[in-house]
């Protein structure tokens, strides 16, 4: 366990040594922003919209009574989306999509000697391939979290108003009541940290793949599993740190 942790930190260190020019990283960074961020917009939108809608319906079914006003539904939807669902749940989904993609891509590059080809040219393959992915995730995940927040709350609005759970005015009133702007910072910080964890863990697993196609598949699976565990542990630690 200690040696794995040690190797992981050495791998992180290698991302920052023997760097290429800024121009090279910039081009790679933009490419990765598209692959990691833009290409995830659809899945994040679908998940956030339905999670918001379901949360609204469930809160109404389980919480509302004659003693609790209707606007509490949207109040809870807002806080759940901001504090947990838009960052943690979204990142668990992205661990599956982005994490497996990174591990699979790097694993395949490893077993087909593409990484060796880079090393032979004197290019630091880990820095060239991985660093732009990590930076792209740390930039795009918070943006995806903002999108997820908005669509989740909007999903709750549509589910609530179209099914007659609460009126449009009640929903808007609920999401404006007792609003704590700091919760947005929490969501962004969590997405930022989870982006780092997903990309570095998945890249580490993919980069150190040995064997053939079977091992690439195993690396992808392990990358997703480990990323999810890391997200959940980090979620607890960040909750303590940021709200405790």
């Amino acid at each position, binding site marked *: 366990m200690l040696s794995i942790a040690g190797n992981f930190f050495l791998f992180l260190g290698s991302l920052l040594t023997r760097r290429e020019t800024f121009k090279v990283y910039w081009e790679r960074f933009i490419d990765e922003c598209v692959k990691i961020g833009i290409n995830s917009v659809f899945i994040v939108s679908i998940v956030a919209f339905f999670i918001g809608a379901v949360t609204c319906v469930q809160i109404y079914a389980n919480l509302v009574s004659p003693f609790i006003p209707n606007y509490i539904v949207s109040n809870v939807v807002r806080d759940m989306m901001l504090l947990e669902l838009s960052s943690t749940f979204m990142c668990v989904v992205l661990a599956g999509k982005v994490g497996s993609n990174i591990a699979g891509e790097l694993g395949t590059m490893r077993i087909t000697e593409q990484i*060796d*080809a880079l090393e*032979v*040219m*004197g*290019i630091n393959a880990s820095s060239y391939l991985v660093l732009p992915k990590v930076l792209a995730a740390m930039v795009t995940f918070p943006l995806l979290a903002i999108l997820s927040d908005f669509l989740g709350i909007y999903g709750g609005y549509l589910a609530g108003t179209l099914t007659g759970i609460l009126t449009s005015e009640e929903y808007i009133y609920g999401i404006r009541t007792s609003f704590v702007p700091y919760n947005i910072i929490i969501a962004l910080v969590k997405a930022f940290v989870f982006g780092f964890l997903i990309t570095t863990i998945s890249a580490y697993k993919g980069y150190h793949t040995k064997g053939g196609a079977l091992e690439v598949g195993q690396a992808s699976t392990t990358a997703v599993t480990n990323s999810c565990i890391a997200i959940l542990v980090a979620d607890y630690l960040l909750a303590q740190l940021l709200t405790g």
Partner: protein
Amino acid sequence: MIEIKNISKSFNGRQILFGIDGVFEKGKTSLVIGASGTGKSVLLKCMLDLVKPEEGQVLYDGRRFLLQEEEDKKDVRRDMGVLFQGGALFDSKTVYENVEFPLKMLTTMSESEKRDRVELCLQRVGLEGTGKLMPSEVSGGMKKRVGIARAIVMNPKYLFCDEPNSGLDPLTAIKIDELIKEITEEYNTTTVVITHDMNSVLSIGDYIMFLNKGKKIWEGDSQSILKTHIQELDEFVFSNHALRQLRG
């Protein structure tokens, strides 16, 4: 010229290479041959410093390569061109971008200079007009050719080919061998080819090193290999049906 001195390597306590020495001359095609699992590819990876040998040194025209800081190796690495077994083309880049890649990363050439150089190299390997294709759209033989084009685009002093004709039909394999031979003479490179193909041995081998179970058993040229009678070498050379019939 490349000199290897006393290269030894083991994996998990199992010795793979036992103190290999050798000299690969400039302008000649040198072959490292042997059966599968004899350590040929490990020797190549040690020479390229992709695998760290426990002992030994590799000298590129007198320049000590191993045990240097990575920054100090850059000069030697710029002089290397490598054709990997499967081509090792970057899947996400087109044929043109694959060949252009070393120029883009390692030189300050202008766009037009790079384009001219890439087109020249693609033309040299007989692939003009294929620049826009993706690696997944070209055949195995073409992948090897693109790999060769990428290897020579930096005008290397040292050319390494790992099993260049594996997985190819006999005719394409011969063409790839001929291409390597021609490029060696044309660019005056020190070429090291890892192979177990006897056709290559007999047709392009200026210098041949035979490995068996991680040890250098024999070295010589393609003329003397058929006249030498060492049991391990005989078993390898005459495992080829045609040669066995020739020997009678």
